[in-house]
């Protein structure tokens, strides 16, 4: 059954898009990630214009993150003060990101920019996660090996220190602000929530306890992606409500299935699977950049998305 998308101005198969949303929902339920980094490239592959794919997936992330945040708020695993600092950085970053996005769009280089961002970030994160989880498995086989926690002392020597009670930290606001800015830029350019960058940064850079990391990052992600959605909707008119609705419905159902599958798998093997998945998407996008394309020419009409 075909559906004509009013903003993307293409006709898509309803079940294909529902299926995409569902697939990403399953993965996000299994791994606890937003799934924006998968949905945007998948939308490219089915022929949605890149600008619409990026803008619409930020809207989808708002939906999937909101239900997860509610659960975390109930468990009181959200550091609202830290979240607010990250959010301020995020709003600045996403404004910057949109300016970069629109500038490169006028040059006809936005596809390249988005692909490059994906290849670089997915490559780094995927590789780190794979190494980390393989190490964890090796260590767990050696009894007596002790976990040592690294401290980044330079973080503690910066000015403007603030107490973050829920996280049990007394650190400068500059590192969390910078993390927020970086994630905001990524959100606007890649159409992602940025959890896959923020979560490691919060654990290893800021030294936040793991139990508040996910909830706090969700808090920041919802507001930043909502803000990005508004920016895309008001400057580029590229948010497709129909497309978003299909993705959301598919995602909501998929997430419930995914959570159940995830509960049955071991945490380490789950992380290895996620790392391989991230590297797979990265590899596909990387090959598209490296191999000679079948059609060297591309078109962009005035008023095109």
């Amino acid at each position: 059954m075909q559906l004509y998308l009013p903003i993307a101005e293409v006709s898509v198969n309803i079940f294909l898009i529902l299926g995409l949303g569902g697939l990403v929902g399953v993965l996000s339920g299994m791994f606890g990630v937003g799934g924006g980094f998968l949905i945007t490239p998948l939308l490219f592959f089915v022929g949605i214009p890149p600008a619409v794919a990026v803008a619409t997936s930020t809207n989808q992330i708002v939906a999937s993150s909101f239900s997860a945040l509610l659960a975390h708020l109930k468990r009181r695993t959200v550091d609202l003060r830290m979240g607010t600092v990250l959010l301020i950085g995020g709003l600045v970053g996403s404004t910057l990101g949109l300016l970069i996005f629109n500038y490169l769009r006028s040059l006809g280089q936005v596809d390249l920019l988005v692909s490059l961002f994906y290849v670089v970030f997915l490559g780094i994160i995927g590789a780190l996660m794979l190494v980390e989880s393989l190490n964890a498995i090796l260590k767990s086989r050696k009894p007596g090996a002790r976990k040592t926690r690294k401290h980044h002392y330079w973080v503690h020597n910066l000015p403007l220190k603030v107490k973050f009670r829920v996280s049990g930290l007394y650190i400068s606001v500059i590192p969390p602000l910078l993390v927020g800015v970086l994630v905001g830029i990524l959100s606007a350019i890649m159409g992602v929530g940025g959890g896959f960058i923020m979560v490691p940064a919060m654990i290893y850079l800021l030294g936040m306890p793991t139990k508040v990391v996910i909830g706090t990052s969700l808090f920041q992600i919802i507001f930043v992606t909502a803000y990005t959605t508004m920016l895309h909707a008001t400057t580029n008119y590229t948010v497709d409500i129909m497309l978003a609705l299909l993705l959301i419905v598919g995602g909501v159902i998929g997430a419930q299935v995914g959570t159940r599958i995830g509960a049955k798998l071991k945490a380490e093997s789950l992380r290895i699977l996620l790392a391989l998945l991230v590297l797979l998407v990265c590899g596909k996008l990387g090959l598209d950049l490296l191999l000679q394309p079948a059609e060297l020419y591309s078109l962009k009409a005035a008023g095109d998305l």
Partner: protein
Amino acid sequence: MIRAILALIFFATQAHSETIVLGLSQDSVSITATFDGSDILIFGAVSRTAPEPLDKGKLGVIIAVSGPDQTVSVFRKQRRMGIWVNTDEVIVDRAPSFYAVATSGPIEDVLSDTEDLRNRVTIPRAIRSVGATVDDSDTFSQALIRIRAKDALFQMNAGAVDLEQDTLFRTSFSLPANLIEGDYLARIFLTRGGKVIDTHSTVIPVQKVGLERWLYNLAHVQPFFYGLLSLVIAIAAGWAASAGAAALKR
């Protein structure tokens, strides 16, 4: 339908010795939520006030349907530092967003080059590219035609017009699903020996209707409200999902 055509022939004007009388299967195209392309049947007849002038060459019918004109940037990729990047750009000042030509025979038989140039009938003639800054700007125009043809946005169908007894003609165009809105122009050329002896044109409006129209207008006229609406839907869906999950657990 045939009776209507005959009636039209009867009352047709007598200015030229051979003129076109035209009918369409539909006056407009509506893009609805389930729009999946559309077929338009164009039919008509040649009305004559004198016997057919067979000594002046063979009769031909050419029908061209064009969508709204656009300015199109054509980019070419080259390998730079190991990856493929858009390096050259040629701006084609005017290219139709959709262009389909159907003829009653091979194009060189039914239309002379000078007439093609004058009336901009064939696909390469319908595109205008001036002031290109790249040496081989022709390859960019060809690429434009190639890419649009692959998406069925440019169609050249020689021999697709049925011409019966040099009087009745008909053809059908298939409009793809990825149409843009606007006034589409159907032009009909009646030729004899490659020379245009009569032309006729009619406008076919293509428009989004219903929900598609409403959402598109809202997104462009009230973008702030539209953005809020999409967020409200997202939040509501997220809330419903967690409420639903909680209900399932109980």
